[in-house]
């Protein structure tokens, strides 16, 4: 392990890679700060740029962008109550009231310190958890992989939100359907190409990611304009106040950061959960831990209420790399995009990555730590200047984002047909957004579709067409057992809710 860490350190600390972490953090902060654009868009926009890069360098840049985007999202959440990223919505609960009270500087500083601490603690966890899980998963077979992918896709749907389970399952299935377009990888037969030569290779993952996130998010800003420009102008012109945090405040917040880091990391490791759920859970946990007096401050500018989600969302970002790097299974939409990028570099993530490409494996982990330091040392002092970007006119920014998204995909295939497919997918994505059908499960289904089919085919071939492969091995059976629990959990929750509501109605009637 020490060899690997040293190798990762030497790769991550090379001047080019250090520059990439810096550029990634900076670009991520900028993109994440723009309301409407999240880390998936930020990373997707970076992919075409990184095509010519060495895989380790490309991944380092993207990890930096991921951190930066979450940090940037916090900045806009605190300054103008417009979280650019879902994972920073909980940050705005107390961050924005603090900014309104004239403590924007302090809120931003606490957000940065909490992010740094959360990211650092989680990076240390990752350092130990990832190799351990990778060595276990070396014994995995096709059946286990198939079961793991089913679990991953089910979990994404289960975490989609109350009452959204079936909708998320539908979107996952839609992603799986899209993955079947093109030539069947094993048989070499064309499926759903309708005789079009342009569809023989299927839909590219980059095209789908760009169209569903970058393009549609930019178009949604035009379709549903939010009235935040005046606040943005005030935030960029006004003074942020002192960024100093007192010793008592640090003492008060240290246990919060510790608890939220652990919670955030483990939530991040779970497939399908991620930064958003981690931040809300950490916020809720801190609220329940707080004294009655402190509880009243939540939502009105509590420092604990700000530190908890900020720590947890960064820790969850690191945690989400565990299943990606060790099993090759992304746990979130963002890591799904990274998985696609890794595959396009010719790197197959999974347990073999740890053995075959230790430089990529370790340098990504080490770069996370460096990314956290860069965010703290460089971005924090630059925030007053970066905040001015919030006032950039949308009428210039939106066409530029559209252009970068379109040309990014075009430069990979040099086929204008892709631009037209992107437009169609973006229109569909807008409709899905309007009717609240989540897009991340679709992307995850699309990326895992090919691998899932391959593993199912292999498992069936090995078991001579018998479905017994599903329960023969204890690992497969256990994973599928967990899947059933995850699948049934929302259903049971639903039944409990209905019974509770009925009981309440009866009580009201009696009353």
């Amino acid at each position, binding site marked *: 392990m020490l060899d690997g860490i040293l190798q990762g350190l030497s790769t991550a600390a090379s001047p080019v890679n250090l520059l990439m972490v810096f550029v990634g953090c900076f670009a991520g902060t900028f993109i994440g700060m723009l309301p409407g654009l999240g880390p998936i868009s930020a990373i997707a926009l970076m992919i075409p740029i990184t095509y010519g890069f060495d895989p380790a360098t490309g991944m380092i840049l993207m990890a930096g962008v991921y951190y930066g985007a979450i940090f940037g999202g916090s900045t806009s959440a605190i300054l103008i109550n417009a979280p650019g990223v879902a994972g920073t919505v909980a940050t705005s609960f107390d961050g924005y009231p603090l900014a309104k009270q004239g403590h924007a500087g302090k809120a931003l500083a606490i957000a940065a310190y909490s992010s740094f601490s959360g990211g650092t603690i989680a990076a240390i966890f990752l350092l130990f958890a990832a190799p351990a899980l990778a060595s276990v998963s070396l014994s995995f077979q096709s059946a286990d992989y198939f079961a793991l992918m089913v679990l991953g896709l089910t979990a994404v749907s289960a975490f989609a939100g109350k009452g959204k389970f079936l909708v998320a399952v539908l979107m996952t299935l839609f992603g799986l359907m899209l993955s079947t377009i093109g030539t069947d990888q094993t048989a070499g037969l064309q499926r759903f190409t309708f005789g079009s030569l342009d569809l023989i290779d299927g839909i590219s993952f980059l095209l789908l990611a760009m169209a569903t996130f970058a393009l549609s998010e930019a178009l949604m800003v035009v379709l549903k304009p939010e009235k935040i420009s005046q606040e943005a102008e005030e935030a960029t012109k006004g003074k942020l106040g002192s960024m100093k945090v007192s010793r008592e405040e640090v003492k008060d917040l240290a246990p919060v950061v510790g608890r939220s880091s652990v919670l955030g990391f483990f939530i991040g490791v779970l497939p399908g959960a991620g930064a958003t759920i981690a931040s809300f859970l950490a916020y809720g946990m801190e609220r329940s831990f707080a004294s009655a007096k402190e509880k009243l401050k939540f939502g009105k500018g509590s420092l604990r209420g700000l530190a908890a989600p900020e720590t947890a969302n960064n820790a969850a970002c690191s945690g989400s790399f565990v299943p990606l790097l060790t099993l090759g299974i992304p746990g979130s939409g963002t890591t799904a995009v990274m998985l696609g990028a890794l595959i396009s570099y010719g790197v197959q993530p999974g347990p073999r990555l740890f053995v075959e490409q230790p430089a990529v494996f370790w340098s990504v982990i080490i770069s996370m730590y460096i990314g956290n330091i860069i965010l703290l040392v460089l971005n924090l002092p630059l925030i007053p200047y970066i905040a001015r970007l919030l006032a950039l006119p949308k*009428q*210039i920014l939106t066409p530029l984002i559209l252009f970068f998204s379109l040309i990014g995909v075009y430069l990979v295939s040099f086929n204008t047909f892709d631009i037209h497919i992107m437009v169609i997918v973006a229109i569909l994505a807008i409709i899905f957004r*309007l009717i609240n059908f989540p897009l991340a499960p679709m992307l995850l289904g699309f990326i895992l579709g090919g691998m899932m089919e391959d593993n199912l085919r292999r498992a069936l071939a090995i078991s001579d067409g018998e479905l017994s492969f599903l329960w023969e091995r204890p690992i497969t059976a256990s994973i599928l057992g967990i899947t059933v629990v995850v699948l049934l959990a929302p259903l049971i929750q639903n039944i409990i809710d209905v019974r509770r509501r009925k009981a309440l109605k009866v009580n009201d009637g009696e009353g």
Partner: protein
Amino acid sequence: MTLSKEKAGALCFLVLAIAYGMEARHIPLFPGDELEPFTARTMPIALSWLTGIVSFLLLVLPQREETDDILSVFRGLNWGRTSILIGLMVFYGLTLSPLGFLLSTVLFLIGGIYALGERRWSVILLSSVPATVGFWFILDKLLGIYLAPGEIFAMLGAN
């Protein structure tokens, strides 16, 4: 009768599942594939069944809470500007080969910035032309990515 956005989405997916399943049955097979446990049709057919069942469940099960009517979701939005931007993207796809990268990109950006309400030509031109030329310079001159000049120029040159 009104249809909630969730049910409307489920109905669309049900139709999609049926169409997808019907098309899946036309996927060609190799001779002897009927005896194989897994063919190129297996996954698509399974997906069409699963999608059909889930969308049907979503259609018939009672909703947890009332959601908006499907038509109300599309009201009160800035469709005009969005449609213009979508049109411009299609235009960009159509003109990229004939007009070349520089000209089509400048036209796309000018159109986009103008459509979003900017009327100062100095701002429009200063935002679009340097961005396009700068990006072209990075791609073509620094990264060595060849961007073919527009077909129209090749035709003009040939004449």
